């Protein structure tokens, strides 16, 4: 329990990951799925950033009389991850636009039903 309280940032990050994961997996609305995806990724980035942060450390820029620095590698990884998740989000949104234009709804169940009914369309 004490560990959980001491590492509250990581606990919070994993809870966020779980919320995002479940939303992405089980929600039927495409836009909410995409929001879930972003929450999931944000949780991961929070986890990574908080692990790399050292209390009292300076920004990792060389200075004459600096004490110690925070770990810059996780920050770099988070930046890369953000780029990845932005492009993934863009693709998912464009797919949603295309599906909405064709089927007139964003609910995946309804889209499946409609696609099944159109037998001629292979």
């Amino acid at each position, binding site marked *: 329990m004490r560990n959980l309280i001491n590492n509250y940032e990581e606990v919070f990050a994993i809870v966020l*990951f779980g919320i*995002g*994961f479940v939303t*992405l*997996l089980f929600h039927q609305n*495409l836009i909410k*799925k995409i929001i879930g*995806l972003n929450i*999931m*990724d944000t949780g*991961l980035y929070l*986890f*990574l950033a908080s*692990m790399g942060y050292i209390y009292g450390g300076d920004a990792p820029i060389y200075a004459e009389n600096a004490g110690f620095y925070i770990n810059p*590698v*996780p920050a770099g*990884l988070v930046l*890369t*991850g953000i780029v*990845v998740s932005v*492009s*993934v989000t863009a*693709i*998912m949104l464009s*797919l*949603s636009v*295309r*599906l909405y234009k*064709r*089927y007139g709804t964003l609910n*995946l169940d309804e*889209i*499946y039903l409609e*696609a099944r009914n*159109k037998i001629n*369309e*292979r």
Partner: protein
Amino acid sequence: MELIANFPFFSIILCLFSAVICSVLRGRGAKICTVVAESVLAILSFATLWYVHLLEKPVTFMMGHFPAPWGNEIRFGTLEAVMATVFSLILLCAVLGGSKFVNRDIFPQKINLYYVLINLLGAALMALIYTNDIFTGYVFLEILTLTSGGILMIREIGRTTLAATRYMILNLLGSGLFLLGIILMYDITGHLLMANMHASLKVLIAHGSYSLPLTVIVGVMCVGLAIKSGLFPFHSWMPDTYGFATPTSASILSGLVSKGYIFLLVKIMYRVIGIDQEILSVARNILFVFGLCGIVFGSVFALQQNNINRMTSYSSVAQIGYIYMGIGIGGTAGFAAAMFHILAHAITKPALFLANASLIEVSDDSPVFHDLSGAAHRNKTAGVFFTIAAMSMVGIPFFAGFTSKLLFSMASLGHNPAKTGLVLVILAISTILNTLYFIRTVIRIYTKRKGDLPRKFSMRAELPGWIAGVSLAAMNLFLGLNSRPVIELIEKGLLRFQ
């Protein structure tokens, strides 16, 4: 000779440059550019194979100006080079064989974008094969996911868009889990390069600390990559994805993309965690069980289908099950069998999808079995290519599929008697099921209807397809008849994979 050590890096950058050039070309020019780039890629990969085979030890190549614990690395041995060579050849065959259908399925102004995606996919595959840095692995894994989603959704019919959405959602879940695994691993070890991670993990495991987090990490990574490669309970995206994509995309997705993920998983097992560690055995046993379930259920589902493309897709579920079964058997023999099956399936499945497309084309564009009767009489070459690939899938001697089944059964002997029994029984059941649905299809396409005459095709349009079909069939026969050198290369590569 020193120059050849740069070839893996060249092959990644070559695909990236070719993608940039394709983006400013028109459709036909982009296709030629892609074909040239993939051919050069195959030559580069083969030269790499030759180089590491002569050198007899893996090569570590420093990327950028910083040495090991800080900078990025490429590492390649015979196993990576074999994979890269075969993958680039199959990429070339898929592009050649499906080009006719690409022109049919995709809007003319988007064809060059299709080839851009193919090139980026090639770059991502090569990077996944060669990289020695786990986060680089993740980034290129995401690029692979994005480009494979792209080559799927570029065919703009409703079902393909829907299939692409489903594919992307499940793949993103997999990537999220895999990234979680990487982050936890980084937090525990403090490294991103596989060799350094392995060194710190070894110390941690010897002390017995972090055993629970390590189990979680292994589980999360295995589940993530299993979702992405379509292991049995996570296979639901496969039939729609392969069934509705344009044939080139279906070939690449089934033959190469899922194999790239499996290769990364094997690399992590060998190079990061260490193949003889106790924590891996639980994960491997679970993968083994799901692999066996996948073999049986994939075949049963395939038997129920009334659509040739969906049948072939469900057969992929079974084949992925084989590969995970090999990983589950363990030992060098098990992994070598899995690697050989990766090659065998990567050669056979694209041939099947390309032949399917040609057979469907002469059957009024209908993939339903009833309409396919006599299709092999209307398009004789496609019928022959389909039959060769189907015989390999069933496991008839002289074809690649037979050799991999033989390797699986040999690998299962002498470990755990329960595992041996299970593997042999499941192999027998699966062979019967495969025979049922593939031979049924072969008989169906050779059952002549009234008035079935060979169609006339224009030589110009068909030639690339024939080249691709003949080379895939030749590779298949080569792996079936002359498998010893390939198996030796794989085994040598696995021994030095760590």
